[in-house]
């Protein structure tokens, strides 16, 4: 007392002053544009749409089911269904979005859209440098800007992507087996008349690639 507490405080700041020259522990600043912290796998900033293969339009996993639109807390997703259907990875005909807009000036990055999406279509991006000097045409992202290849998703969230890819591959195998069984069943009583023999050229089966990425 009578000044001893103040002197203890002085010693403490002096320790930090000296420590800042010899220990990273006492100089914690990350000098941002030059230095960057690695983001953890779970990091989530803004949503994006995953597509398979090379064509963002044909490979888009989104089926315009509008679940994300309904669940989005700040209502920043805006979907209009297209009249034309397209086949998905197991060959089933699905709806596709004509308009898929995300207003990222409203989006709060909660990740609920990615969580509720039953088609593994919407996932969370990790790009955080989103500021722009132009506020009119930059923040309402359309599906062309949102669509990112599956490889990108694998890079961001390797374990999540591995699980997704495995599940989708399994779905596909099951669907093919089912189609074969159905075809076989159909072939037994009468000549085969399969209208859709699966979409082998459409989906470039991402299984082997994924195995490499995941390991």
């Amino acid at each position: 007392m009578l000044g001893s507490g103040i002197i203890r405080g002085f010693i403490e700041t002096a320790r930090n002053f000296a420590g800042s020259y010899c220990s990273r522990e006492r100089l914690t600043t990350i000098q941002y544009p030059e230095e960057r912290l690695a983001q953890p796998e779970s990091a989530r900033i803004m949503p994006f749409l995953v597509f398979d293969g090379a064509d963002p339009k044909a490979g888009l996993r989104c089926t315009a089911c509008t679940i994300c639109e309904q669940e989005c807390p700040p209502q920043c997703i805006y979907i209009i269904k297209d009249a034309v259907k397209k086949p998905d990875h197991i060959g089933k005909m699905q709806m596709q979005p004509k308009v898929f807009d995300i207003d990222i000036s409203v989006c709060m990055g909660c990740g609920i859209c990615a969580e509720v999406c039953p088609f593994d279509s919407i996932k969370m991006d990790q790009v955080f440098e989103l500021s722009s000097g132009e506020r009119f045409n930059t923040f309402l992202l359309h599906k062309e800007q949102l669509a990112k290849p599956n490889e990108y998703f694998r890079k961001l969230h390797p374990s999540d992507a591995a699980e997704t890819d495995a599940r989708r591959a399994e779905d596909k195998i099951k669907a093919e087996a089912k189609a074969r069984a159905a075809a076989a069943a159909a072939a037994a009583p009468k000549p085969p008349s399969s209208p859709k023999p699966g979409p082998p050229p459409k989906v470039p089966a991402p299984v082997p690639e994924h195995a490499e990425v995941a390991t």
Partner: protein
Amino acid sequence: MIAIDNDTEVKQELLEVSMGPHHPSTHGVFRMNVLLDGETVVKLKPVFGYLHRNHEKIAETNSYLASIPYTDRLDYICAMTNNWAYTLSVEKLAGIAVPPRAEYIRVIVSELTRLINHSCLAGFLLQDMGALGTPLMYAFREREKILDLFEALTGSRMMHNFMRFGGCRCDLPPGWVDGAKTIVAHFGPFLDEFEALLTGNEILRARTEGVGVLSGALAVSAGVTGPMLRASGVNYDIRKVDAYGAYGKFAFRVPLGQRGDVFDRYMVRILEMRESLKILEQALRELPDGPVIDPKAKLRNLRPKPGEAYGRIESPKGELGFYLISDGGPTPYRFRVRPPSLINVTILEDLCLGHSVADVVVILGSVDIVLGEVDR
């Protein structure tokens, strides 16, 4: 103020000052209409609403799930506890059980949140006292480590959106428990360092002892909760009273103050952090295996049976409660947040009367309000 009028008669006038919203200590979101006699406070009326966004109304138009990320933004320093209070209320309303591992994880993240809140509060308090941010920077240094941990777990540093009805959104990533153990082990020495800088400091004690004394009786009547209530010597900790979650399984003590002044409020928080470390050590050691979410719990389309429920937890700032009424629809019919910050600030005027302007800032700091929660 002394004004000399024509008859050279000395006249005493009161000075009315509007502290805030453009005041460095109110951060643009809070105002106090203060009537001063010299520098002594004669009257003080807090004015809120600068951050009002009617969270309750938004929640009444959104599904139960979609309100979780909004609760992150109530008390933006302690998103985890906000999540927990809300999910607890919905679990009560819909009768959802939580698996033990999820309960443990909830306790761990909540106690880490308590460490963040209390250490930052001490920093902000000293900042308001003019210590130029040094304690705040030290607190932030430690907070960063915990935020890194939260980011690895939830993907976001502050807006965690982590808990779900019936458990937690995801399991702990590999290596997380070890990271948490390291942080817990290092936090005690940090607190010693922090206290060396502050607790014995004569200036701090002169500024805080006997300032803003709150009696236990007034505190209870005014609904003051959390460390502020306990600093006034009232033993009421919802972690003990309700023993929600897994809190019944841990040995910890509740520190109580004697005089209810600013120094007691500061010290009770420091001691509470040390107790939190004990809880964390136990929880991290005994963390059970198993699922982190009730497999029967529905993520979407939750439609609880008509009825109502009030769930509350001990958030770092006090009793955070959610009062929900369901009419059987997909959205809550009534969604009410019981914000500890707003109700703790009820007695601000009682605490400040007779003190000087400089003390108002310190008292306000010791009440520990977050305007995101006060205004909602």
